[in-house]
């Protein structure tokens, strides 16, 4: 079973490497690049909302700040483009601290409303601080990324860079999820009082989760900005935040594989459905809703099903066994 899984993963990997060489269609390449960006953002969101259970509806704001930070740096200050990357991390770090703070005071819907507020304020400031951000007319002529004089100026080149980054970040995310961090994030979601009682500083961890979410989000924004070449505030609206949550939900909350599947599906499905013309967006929304209602554990759960059933039987057997053991002890 495991071997099949690994073989499958290698196959997908090879296909992805070969894809832009086999398919020269710029549209397809560009779409894949968007997929990579979205994967990165969703994996970040997964830390805070998927694992820690803190409802974050402010992804658009995070993403926008990451995008604008780099865009403004290199168009206004003419800094080298790659600087945007550390800057994105720094901005993410700062946002994480800032957004993490409210999460210490409010939970659940209250937090989601706070994050909505944050994201809307960011958008309105980007729209209105015209001298600084270019306002609603946006920032144009954003240069492409370049590294050591090599410019990533075609979707083909961008593809490999973003693919590589997405893989690195996915590995990092997967490791975090399956490590003590992921575990303790989930524990906070289940019962934060008990986590405190285990000597763990919940405040710190929530901020850590927010920070990682924001760093991933800002890296996503950074990559987005240098792929687009032009940004304006209208794209960073509530709909975008929601879209990322939808990706996470459809893929499977809490799992990196799920995040990836969700990002792929939500990015590509509407494009695939374009042939339905006038109806495509409706159909897409209906499909999303159907997934939410009928596949609450996300697409990943389709792959895990057989495992889970086995486990159910196990539970019963081991409980029975344990009870027998207890009974045995009592007898003597």
């Amino acid at each position, binding site marked *: 079973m495991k071997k099949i899984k690994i073989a499958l993963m290698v196959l997908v990997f090879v296909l992805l490497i070969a894809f832009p060489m086999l398919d020269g269609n710029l549209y397809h390449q560009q779409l894949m690049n968007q997929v990579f960006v979205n994967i990165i953002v969703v994996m970040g969101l997964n830390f805070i909302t998927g694992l820690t259970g803190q409802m974050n509806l402010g992804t658009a704001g995070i993403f926008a700040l990451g995008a604008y930070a780099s865009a403004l740096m290199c168009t206004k200050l003419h800094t080298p483009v790659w600087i945007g990357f550390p800057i994105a991390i720094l901005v993410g770090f700062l946002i994480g601290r800032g957004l993490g703070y409210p999460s210490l005071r409010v939970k659940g819907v209250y937090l989601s409303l706070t994050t909505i*507020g944050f994201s809307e304020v960011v958008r309105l*400031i980007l729209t209105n601080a015209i001298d600084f951000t270019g306002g609603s007319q946006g920032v144009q002529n954003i240069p492409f990324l370049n590294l050591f004089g090599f410019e990533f100026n075609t979707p083909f080149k961008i593809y490999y860079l973003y693919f590589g980054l997405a893989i690195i970040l996915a590995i990092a995310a997967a490791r975090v999820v399956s490590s003590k961090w992921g575990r303790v994030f989930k524990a906070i979601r289940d019962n934060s009082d008990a986590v405190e009682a285990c000597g763990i500083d919940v405040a710190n961890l929530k901020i850590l989760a927010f920070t990682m979410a924001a760093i991933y989000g800002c890296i996503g924004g950074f990559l987005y900005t240098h792929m687009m070449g032009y940004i304006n505030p209208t794209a960073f609206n509530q709909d975008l935040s929601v879209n990322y949550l939808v990706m996470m939900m459809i893929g499977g909350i809490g799992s990196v594989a799920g995040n990836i599947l969700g990002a792929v599906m939500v990015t590509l499905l509407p494009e695939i459905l374009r042939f339905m013309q*006038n109806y495509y967006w409706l159909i897409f929304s209906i499909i999303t809703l159907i997934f939410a209602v009928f596949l609450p554990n996300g697409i990943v759960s389709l792959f895990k099903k057989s495992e889970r059933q086995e486990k159910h039987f196990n539970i019963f057997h081991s409980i029975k066994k344990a009870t027998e053991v207890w009974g045995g002890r009592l007898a003597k």
Partner: protein
Amino acid sequence: MESILQLIVSGVAMGFIYALVGIEYTLVWNSTGLLNFSHDKFIMLSAYIFAGTFVVKMGLPPAVGVIASLLVMFIFGMLVAVGIFNPLRSMASPIFAVMGTVVLGRIISEMVRLIWGPIPFTLPNYLTGTYQLGNIIIGRVNVWIIVISSLLVAALQIFFKTTKTGKAMRCVQQNKKAATLMGIDVSKNIVFTIVLSSLVCTVIGMLVIPLFTVDTSMANMIGLKGFSSGVIGGFGYLPGVIAGGVFLGVLENFSTIVLPAVYKDCVGFVLMIIFLLVRPSGILGHRKNLR
């Protein structure tokens, strides 16, 4: 002076619209513990049903249209509750419920676009006109809104505090299992709540037509502002919602005196964040546990 008074009056008028939206989602929140992120779309849908179908297309007199729209939205609310809200609320993570409502909103707006077409319209001579007091002007429809939202809050407050069904709705939010054991039909209750909220949305949708005109994004802004006014008024506390809405409306207008008017929308969100963090009990100081 005159312009300050006018700003207050317009702010109050707008504030009551925010309050109406706030009432609607407080209602859903109080009894299901869900936030309906598609309420702006419900409002929009009902405006289309009322104005687009009943008044314009079928030529019914508005009074009849009102009743017909309430009926249609009653059924719509019921379908949505049974088909979507009920399954979503029982899911492990509240993310599903939130996302479900958002996606539902998208579906509604696409349906509206496909059914009624994308062209904005309005109802001429429906609740139009203004009243004038000295130099202070207030729209006729605003007066309607103020009266109706006050009545609505009073009625809902009595309903929640005194009637059994109202209390049952609060029980359902707090502990579904225990509610069942008291003999409360939890699913029916949720259906009832959603239907009620759908009706309140219909009232809002029909009232704002003269001010907002009918188009697919007509209620986007008040959807979010409604949340702010609810928070400012003390989450889940009905009389507070009106206070919150009016406070927000007036403050927004006052902000235009000192700030560029384009920052007006910021005021609502900043205020909401401040209240959430600093005074979660709202301006009336209603105590309630944060969950």
